[in-house]
């Protein structure tokens, strides 16, 4: 029991992160506006919210459009239901920017913003308009918004509900890295003291690592479909990951294609070390220097830098630890199985 605490811990962590990660609601947000073109004069559009509570907060609902330094307020606002608003507003002929940001604010949901919600049609875009008296046109009443009381995940445009994938996609790659590093360590140990046990362990670590790499590829593919619109895009990071999988498949082909098991172990260990260093170089270092769509690569900020809020962190870090623990646990079980197998074969030949 005392030695197995980490297994229980990681199982519990994975269980809780799966339950909370899949069940906690997304923060309220604005998903779309229709129609999304506005012309000179009176316009009427419908605002589509997500997890919002418009009808609950009828009295303190505020909506405004922002365009450059101008703030445009609707003169008519109709709450259709919790998720839909109908707003009517008038647009001047000259605007500073081609895009309008939409803000919705109420006491229950806080302030929600949809960037570039509306686009101008047939308007004159002037770089700077004469400064207008703000107080005249402004509809902004000062109000305090309390933080949402329940536990929610940030509602990012484009990502939307798929933000939960962070708890599965990223930890599976972390676990794969951990296992491949263990496999490397076992291969080095094998070359140093030629104990056949270490070769079995290196193979097991790489095998379990491949399973996690497959999970990482699958979850990543689903995510790419949602955010980038395709199951697979040609991207340095993605190609690097695919090549990493190929390298370890090649490792198993090499080990199985040599009949002499001692020789197979030695060749496998050498290839494992060589391939690991090459793969790390190509996956981790080089894509950072070139352009990539993937977060954390080529100047793209990783999640943690700006849109991983405290609630996400509270689930994400335990998820990483939990999945890594599960990965190590599977590897340990497989190591024990192969150790027993190995002993039995030795006894049969003895």
């Amino acid at each position, binding site marked *: 029991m005392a030695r197995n605490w980490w297994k229980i811990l990681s199982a519990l962590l994975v269980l809780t992160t799966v339950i909370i990660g899949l069940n906690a609601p997304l923060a309220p947000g604005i998903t779309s506006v229709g129609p999304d073109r506005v012309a000179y004069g009176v316009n009427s559009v419908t605002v589509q919210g997500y997890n919002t509570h418009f009808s609950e907060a009828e009295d303190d609902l505020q909506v405004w459009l922002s365009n450059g330094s101008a703030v445009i307020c609707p003169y008519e606002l109709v709450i259709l239901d919790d998720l839909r608003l109908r707003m009517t507003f008038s647009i001047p002929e000259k605007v500073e920017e081609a895009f309008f940001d939409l803000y919705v604010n109420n006491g229950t949901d806080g302030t929600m913003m949809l960037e570039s919600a509306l686009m101008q049609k047939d308007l004159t875009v002037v770089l700077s308009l004469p400064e207008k008296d703000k107080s005249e046109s402004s509809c902004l009443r000062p109000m305090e918004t309390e933080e949402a009381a329940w536990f929610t995940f940030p509602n990012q445009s484009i990502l939307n509900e798929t933000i939960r994938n962070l708890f599965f996609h990223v930890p599976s790659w972390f676990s794969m890295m951990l296992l491949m590093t263990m496999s490397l360590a076992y291969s080095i140990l094998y*070359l140093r003291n030629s104990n056949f046990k270490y070769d079995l362990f290196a193979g097991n670590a790489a095998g379990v690592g491949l399973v996690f790499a497959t999970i990482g590829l699958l979850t990543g593919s689903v995510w790419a479909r949602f955010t980038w619109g395709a199951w697979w895009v040609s991207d340095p990071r993605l*190609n*690097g990951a695919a*090549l*990493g999988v*190929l*390298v370890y498949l*090649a490792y198993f*082909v*090499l080990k199985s*294609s*040599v009949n002499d098991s001692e*020789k197979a172990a*030695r*060749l496998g*260990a*050498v*290839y494992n*070390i*060589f*391939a690991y*260093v*090459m793969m790390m*170089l*190509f996956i981790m270092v*080089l894509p950072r*220097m070139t352009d990539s769509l993937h977060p954390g690569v080529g100047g793209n900020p990783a999640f943690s830098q700006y849109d991983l809020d405290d609630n996400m962190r509270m689930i994400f870090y335990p998820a990483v630890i939990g999945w890594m623990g599960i990965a190590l646990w599977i590897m340990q079980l497989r190591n024990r199985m192969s150790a027993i197998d190995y002993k039995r074969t030795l006894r049969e030949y003895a």
Partner: protein
Amino acid sequence: MAYLGFREIVDVPTWNALFWIIVLFSAFNAAARSFASENTGRRLYLFTLARPEAVVLGKMIYNALLLMVMVFSSFAFYALTLGTSPLQDADVLGVVTALALGGLGLGLILTLVAALASHTDNNLGLMAILGLPVILPYLLILIRFSKNALDGIAWSVNGVYALQLGAVAVLSLALSYILFPYLWRE
């Protein structure tokens, strides 16, 4: 072969990529021969004579030089048969560096792979399986680098790729130097 298929290629990316693919295939064959062509007796003789580090260094230098000569000569032949129009506004220093680094890197990386494959029964097949995922990223950077050089992009922009390629080549040299002795003892 390429000449028979296309007669002339004007498009720079195609011209460039096809060249490196041809080089890749010939590099695999050339590197595989460096170990496969020697028999057990000669290997044993070498083993008694020299340290494994010296053997692998020799093989790597030989492979790198051989591939460089091959790359340069096939580039000349390729340009001759498939048209020199992509070379019009090329950065000469860049193209020469790309060719040199291509030969060097392919030779260095494939030496260890060839050494591994030579210990198995299915030499050439396994060479492709083991070598391709390891060499492919290097080749991708190389193709981008040489395409930029063909387009005449300034050295200050393109130099990063040359640096990356050089670093990978040096790293693979160091790794092979460390790992080869384990393959050699038999």
